[in-house]
């Protein structure tokens, strides 16, 4: 009975955990007052690089999973270093652009080089199933705990200060540039892990899974849940992953839904569903 239930909803259970991780990847960046739309692109890089390592190098998964974060982190550095010293709009623009470009790269590289790496529009299939529910939720739980501890520490206080007023935080001695870069790298790590885990449970990945629509959906998770604590984004991801499943026939309108949520939350509910903030001891 329980096995049946698990089998029917297997993909949903995976998706809940993976979307929770992606929502955390968004949370890290939002909580320093930046907007990066690169999480889907980072997840795609993690998924493709992880899948290629498993398929062609036949490396064990405990090597592949951490190694899947290398490529996303390199891209985060290449984009973050020039944009993070400018105002927030540059990072947003460059990361949306990154998603578009990578899609074109996955689609066209094989034709160009005559290789069979990315599988073009057909995507990459036959990825060995290495991840499972325990691993996905273990990583998710670990990420929540780490982010919670960091959030309560002095670094968390610095992040909160930056989100409120970057100039004031800088005056008070916060190394704004470093914290922003660290947040973007952490975001790339989380998204890369999420992408690689996703690829190793679904056995198939395609270029359109990491495009514009998923990128914006991830933002809607974090905003709906609220970014006061790491739990908010995870709850937001769970609600927005389950809702289309409950409302039959709403799957086509998922994009409309995710988009409308962002508009409504920013305009009318700026602190999200869980408006609590992390408690910190007085300094």
């Amino acid at each position, binding site marked *: 009975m329980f096995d049946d239930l698990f089998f029917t909803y297997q993909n949903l259970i995976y998706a809940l955990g993976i979307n929770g991780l992606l929502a955390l990847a968004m949370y890290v960046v939002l909580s320093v*007052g*930046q*907007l990066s*739309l690169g999480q889907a692109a980072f997840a795609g890089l993690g998924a493709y690089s992880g899948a290629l390592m498993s398929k062609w190098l036949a490396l064990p998964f405990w090597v592949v999973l951490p190694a899947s974060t290398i490529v996303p982190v390199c891209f985060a550095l*290449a*984009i973050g*270093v*020039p*944009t*993070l*010293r*400018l*105002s*927030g*709009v*540059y990072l*947003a*623009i*460059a990361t*949306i*652009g*990154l998603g*578009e*470009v990578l899609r*074109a*790269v996955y*689609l*066209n*590289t094989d*034709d*160009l080089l005559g290789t069979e790496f990315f599988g073009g529009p057909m995507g990459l299939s036959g990825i060995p199933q290495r991840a499972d529910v325990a691993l996905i939720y273990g990583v998710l739980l670990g990420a929540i705990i780490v982010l919670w501890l960091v959030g309560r520490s002095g670094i968390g206080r610095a992040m909160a200060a930056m989100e409120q007023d*970057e100039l004031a935080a800088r005056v008070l001695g916060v190394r*704004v540039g470093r914290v922003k870069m660290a947040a973007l790298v952490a975001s790339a790590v989380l998204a890369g892990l999420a992408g690689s885990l996703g690829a190793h449970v679904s056995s198939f990945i395609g270029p359109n899974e990491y495009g*514009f*629509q998923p990128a*914006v*959906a991830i*933002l*809607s998770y974090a*905003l709906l849940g609220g970014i006061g604590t790491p739990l908010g984004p995870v709850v937001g991801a769970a609600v927005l992953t389950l809702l289309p499943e409950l409302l039959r026939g709403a799957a*086509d*309108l*998922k*994009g*409309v*839904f*995710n*988009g*409308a*949520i*962002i*508009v409504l939350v*920013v*305009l009318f509910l*700026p602190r999200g569903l869980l408006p609590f903030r992390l408690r910190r001891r007085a300094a």
Partner: protein
Amino acid sequence: MFAQQLVNGVLLGATYALFALGFTLMFGVLRVINLTYGCYFSVGAFLALFAVRLAGMSIWTALPAAAVGTGVIAIVVDWLLLTRLRRVGAPELSSLMVTLGAALAIYAAGTALLGPDIRRLPPGLVKGLPMIVGGVFITPTQILILGATGLIVGLLVWLIRFTRVGLAIRAVAEKPDAAGLMGVDTARAAMLVSFVSGALGGAAGVLIGLNFNAIQPYMGEEMMLRGFIVVIVGGLGDIRGALLAGLLLGVVEVFTAGYIASGLKEAVSFLILVAVLWTRPAGLFGRATAQRA
């Protein structure tokens, strides 16, 4: 071959410039990165398609009608999404997120309503035989694109530099509060800028739709990548920069496709964007002030 590529590149670049002008104008005056801007591109193309297919209009009337229609839609979208945020003086991130969410909702709704298939304008919309100048083929469609782009850009420059409303717009771009105190109706200026930007985006959509004869709801989203590259390479808010960078991008894309590989044109353009961000964040021509954090 080289001359032909150059002509094709300049023509493509002219439409990129037209598209990016509206985007950069919106940022320059309203200080908002409006990500629904890509939607106007799709909306313009579809309005023209419907005008031609359903109302039987010629392209000469369909193009201005689509541009005006898109401009009106842009006013409504701006009013619905941004007036509230402007009033409370919300941080720039909020307007970015709102327009991003709205863009996704509009694209997804458009796809649900119209379907994801590629639609085409009826053949023979622009009559006439291709001209051959010095061994270079130029189709009547290309002449229409170049003529329309030149006319629209000329009108825009005239509006901004030589009219009273243009002066008001420039004053609002410079310092909105001070402009308001000097008696400029800032809300009206903002509305006018939304209209003009929407019309530019819509017109670019019609012209690109004509150029490639392929129209589908998500076309604006793909175009936004070009928009981003052009406005950043040209300098955010810099109109002359956007014109030059648009032409440059068109030529670069056509040459990459012609001499290296067509699948690489996005990647090459993006490399240019990242290189400019690394070295000249105020734009290639350095006139825009880079918004330092």
